[in-house]
């Protein structure tokens, strides 16, 4: 007893320090490799703490503003987020299009958490986090969404720690237990019972420290939903069969090692471990062999099969359990759970222990504990298992109709536990993988886990051998047969009627299956056969009949097959008959006509529908079933969307298209410009009119000058005569001082018209020889009038005056002469006569002499006058 108590005390003593150590171990963890995850988890805690603090102030706004402040600070720090540098001044911030609050928050939180890890740790130690503020749930949920993955992993690692601790304890305990004698069994079981409690309490402490994590964990972890009613039911069922408690004990013990673990001494353990694997298997196998049935138990298949329950006998269950144990660790967990519960039934204390597992403490931890225990104690169990199972199968089972009923009830539980527990086991394993901190424990655990397997493998080579053999045998047929085998076994063992019935039903079923096989085989044979047996030409009526006959002859025993055959025959007959009835032409026309309702995408849908119905006339799809509006609507919508989205672009860029009629509005009419500038044009015209006036005068003058120059062929005498007249004319016209030549040629005005480029020249140009002609005054006058229509009255007057004066000299001066043309001038051109004035000819000495004489006399006169003048001035 002392031995037993001692470990318990140790365990109890250990648990509280463990929990504390765990909570304290956080900072240490934080420094580890996967710290980040933990930190992320803790951020939520941190926030909640903070929030709650703010909430304690009863100031909601302050809380919100606190949040805002954090966000703002974060924004300031991260320039990438905040667009404005001077956001301090601005009461609001400007963010980019891709702004997302969640990410932002996350960052801020992570940072904050990094800064305040120590604080958080202290908080967690203080246990301040026990309460969970509903006000913060929203944020936490949001946070969880974001970090869920990370969190989960982190949580796994965290949850793992306690587990590992527990496993540690368990190991120690198991060691103790191993030393303890069998008789103290119950105490040890109590011990175990206490242990989970203490564990749960410690875990409670931990979880109270971080409720949120726990909740998230609960979300992720599958939990065993066991109501009190279930437990009671189980207990009741077990209690109801007190005799079987022992016999069922094996069952439970097979699975539930930890309760009985203490019983087993250390020494026999290894031996029994070997047996553990063997016993159920071998028993089953031998039984099955005896039955001459195919061993069709495939452990893996068994799990999946839903039929399992209906046909299940005890033996089958045992077999499976044992197999699972040896093969699958996860399945061990399941069984353990089941067994633990059952064990609880037998032991009142253990029930109490079991309840907290189901209700209070997290299912995960309990399951983990179970797994641990199992791992530790796996080795011990087999011994008992062997004995009990042998009892069950060989001795007890024949008389255990009650047992079956109990099993049915109990089997419900394992099913429940199975899935959830197996999952939990998986999670546990994941936790192992992720756990870095507790590598040592993990290793130990792993080694422990390995132990049973290795021991089973090493100590007993039999069981593994058996499985493959069975598997190979079983591989062909389905699961039902295996069940039937087990059933049949049971039935054989028991005299009960129902078992016989089952057997009969099974046999019938098997037969039916064989019959089906044959049927298929025959059918295939018929398909392949005909060319060999029968003529290639097929006569429909006779063929079907012969088939029918064949079927009937071949298998008269099987009613099911006959039915099938009949139906087949009928079907075939119908088919052929129908074809015979139909006329070919109609058939073709109907068949190969293009059906418009099957065109296009919608038609495709309809076609599929039609195919689904088959060629049933009642469900023929015609165009009425066509759903066109939906697609059209969609297309229309898309078009409108494009219109709505595009128009701005269209409005901005308008290309003038001259071919389009509505673009005429963008055209400028040609009339606009002239109308606008009419006034200007008038002005321009007037200006243009005036200008010629000026130039006309000049032209006229110039022309006169040129004429005079070229026509200076007249005698000086004549010029001198005309001088006064011309001068008068000149003054009247322009009041300009003309050159001497012009003055001199003024008298020869009539000749100027001969050189006019307009009319008068025509005659001269035609003539080879240059003729100097006098133009009739009348013609000249007329020409003048035409040329200077616009001329002012002044000019007209002048011209008139000219005209009056001109005629007289012209007629007198110009004789008609024909001269040979030389350049512009003819020989002895009269016009050149005047040039004598400008150069001194050879024969001009006379004039020179006279000039000298005259100049002398003139000089003398000048001097005289000058002297006289001087004299006059002097005396004055």
């Amino acid at each position, binding site marked *: 007893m002392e031995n037993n108590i001692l470990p318990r005390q140790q365990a109890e003593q250990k648990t509280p320090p463990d929990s504390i150590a765990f909570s304290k171990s956080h900072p240490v963890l934080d420094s580890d490799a996967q710290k980040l995850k933990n930190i992320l988890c803790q951020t939520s805690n941190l926030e909640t703490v903070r929030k709650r603090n703010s909430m304690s102030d009863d100031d909601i706004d302050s809380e919100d503003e606190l949040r805002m402040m954090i966000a703002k600070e974060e924004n300031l720090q991260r320039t990438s987020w905040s667009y404005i540098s001077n956001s301090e001044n601005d009461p*609001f911030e400007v963010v980019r299009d891709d*702004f997302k609050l969640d990410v932002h928050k996350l960052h801020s939180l992570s940072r904050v958490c990094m800064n305040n890890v120590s604080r958080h740790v202290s908080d967690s130690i203080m246990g301040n986090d026990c309460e969970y503020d509903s006000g913060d749930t929203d944020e936490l949920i949001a946070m969880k969404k974001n970090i869920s993955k990370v969190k989960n992993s982190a949580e796994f690692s965290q949850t793992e720690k306690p587990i590992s601790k527990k496993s540690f304890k368990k190991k120690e305990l198991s060691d103790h237990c191993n030393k303890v004698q069998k008789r103290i069994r119950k105490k040890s079981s109590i011990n175990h019972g206490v242990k989970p409690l203490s564990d749960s309490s410690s875990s409670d402490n931990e979880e109270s420290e971080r409720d949120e994590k726990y909740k998230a964990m609960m979300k992720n972890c599958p939990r065993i939903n066991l109501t009190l009613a279930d437990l009671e039911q189980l207990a009741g069922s077990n209690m109801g069969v007190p005799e079987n408690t022992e016999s069922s004990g094996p069952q439970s013990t097979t699975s539930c090692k930890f309760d009985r673990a203490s019983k087993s001494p250390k020494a026999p353990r290894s031996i029994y471990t070997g047996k553990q694997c063997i016993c159920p298997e071998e028993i089953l196998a031998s039984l099955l062999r005896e039955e001459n049935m195919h061993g069709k138990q495939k452990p893996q298949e068994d799990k999946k099969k839903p039929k399992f329950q209906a046909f299940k006998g005890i033996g089958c269950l045992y077999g499976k359990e044992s197999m699972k144990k040896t093969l699958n660790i996860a399945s061990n967990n399941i069984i353990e759970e089941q067994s633990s519960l059952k064990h609880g039934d037998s032991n009142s204390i253990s029930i109490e222990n079991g309840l907290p597992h189901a209700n209070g403490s997290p299912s995960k931890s309990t399951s983990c504990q179970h797994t641990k225990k199992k791992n530790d104690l796996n080795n011990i169990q087999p011994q008992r298992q062997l004995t009990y199972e042998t009892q069950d199968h060989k001795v007890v089972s024949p008389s255990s109709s009650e047992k079956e009923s109990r099993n049915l009830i109990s089997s419900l539980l394992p099913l429940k536990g199975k899935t959830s527990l197996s999952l939990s086991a998986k999670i546990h394993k994941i936790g192992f993988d992720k756990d870095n901190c507790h590598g040592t424990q993990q290793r130990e655990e792993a080694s422990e886990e390995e132990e049973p397997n290795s021991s089973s493998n090493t100590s007993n080579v039999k069981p593994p051998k058996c499985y493959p053999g069975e598997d190979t045998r079983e591989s062909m047929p389905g699961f039902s047969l295996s069940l039937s085998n087990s059933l049949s076994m049971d039935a054989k063992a028991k005299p009960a009627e129902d078992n016989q019935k089952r057997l009969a039903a099974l046999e019938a079923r098997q037969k039916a299956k064989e019959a089906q096989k044959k049927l298929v085989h025959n059918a295939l044979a018929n398909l392949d056969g005909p060319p060999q047996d029968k003529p290639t030409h097929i006569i429909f009526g006779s063929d079907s009949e012969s088939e029918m006959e064949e079927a009937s002859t071949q298998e008269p025993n099987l009613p099911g097959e006959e039915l099938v055959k009949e139906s087949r025959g009928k079907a075939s007959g119908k088919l052929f008959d129908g074809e015979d009835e139909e006329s070919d032409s109609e058939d073709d026309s109907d068949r190969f006509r293009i059906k418009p309702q099957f065109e296009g995408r919608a038609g495709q849908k309809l076609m599929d529908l039609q195919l689904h119905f088959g060629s049933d006339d009642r469900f023929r799809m015609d165009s009425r079933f066509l759903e066109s509006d*939906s697609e059209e609507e969609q297309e229309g919508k898309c078009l409108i969307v494009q219109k709505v989205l595009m128009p701005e672009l269209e409005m901005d860029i308008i290309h003038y298209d001259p071919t389009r009629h509505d673009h005429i509005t963008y055209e400028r009419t040609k009339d606009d410009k002239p109308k606008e500038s009419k006034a200007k044009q008038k002005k321009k015209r007037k200006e243009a009119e005036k200008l010629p006036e000026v130039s006309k005068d000049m032209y006229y003058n110039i022309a006169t000058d040129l004429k005079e120059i070229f026509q200076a062929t007249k005698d000086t005498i004549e010029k001198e005569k005309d001088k006064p007249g011309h001068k008068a004319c000149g003054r009247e016209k322009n009041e300009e001082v003309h050159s001497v030549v012009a003055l001199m040629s003024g008298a020869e005005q009539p000749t100027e018209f001969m050189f006019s480029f307009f009319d008068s020249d025509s005659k001269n140009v035609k003539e080879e020889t240059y003729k100097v002609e006098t133009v009739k005054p009348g013609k000249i006058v007329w020409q003048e009038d035409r040329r200077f229509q616009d001329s002012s009255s002044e000019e007209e007057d002048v011209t008139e005056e000219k005209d009056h004066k001109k005629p007289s000299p012209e007629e007198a001066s110009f004789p008609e002469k024909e001269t040979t043309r030389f350049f512009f001038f003819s020989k002895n051109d009269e016009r050149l006569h005047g040039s004598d004035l400008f150069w001194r000819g050879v024969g001009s000495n006379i004039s020179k002499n006279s000039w000298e004489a005259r100049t002398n006399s003139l000089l003398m006169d000048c001097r005289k006058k000058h002297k006289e003048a001087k004299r006059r001035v002097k005396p004055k």
Partner: protein
Amino acid sequence: MCPLTEEETRVMFEKITKYIWENLQLLVDRPIGTYYFRLHNDRVCYVSEKMLKLAANISGDKLVSLGTCFGKFTKTHKFRLHIMALDHLAPYVKYKVWIKPGAEQSFPYGNHVLKSGLGRITENTSQYQGVVVYSMADIPLGFGVAVKSTQDCRKVDPMAIVVIHQAGFGEYIRHEETLT
């Protein structure tokens, strides 16, 4: 319950475009199933194909509403957004305005957002741009129209209206009888 005419569709899309711009395409062409707009009692309902087919079994006069009511057509054939469209439009909206907790209190009563209540705004928000109003916790509260551009928001005095209230979650209570 009938499909929208082209004109109605255009008017409605123009309205929605003010908020989500080219993301309207995503609203019309949904990767998950087909969605339709249906007109029922002058109200535009956004219905999934499946629901539409189910609703086809119910006579129009007995049918109160179906799918999500996006808004309604006024007598002058203008489209007015309802708050129910928020869930569908908020994910696609381009310009957002976050309001402070104080303004968050008054916004559901139909009050406009003053500059003092403006917590955050998307950059480059132009004047008269349709926006979705968010709380600082990033929860969409309703629709609005920015009467000041982002740059103008800096200059105006704190009591100036920045966002005009168009539809807010307060309508769920205040206009309960008209929201179907």
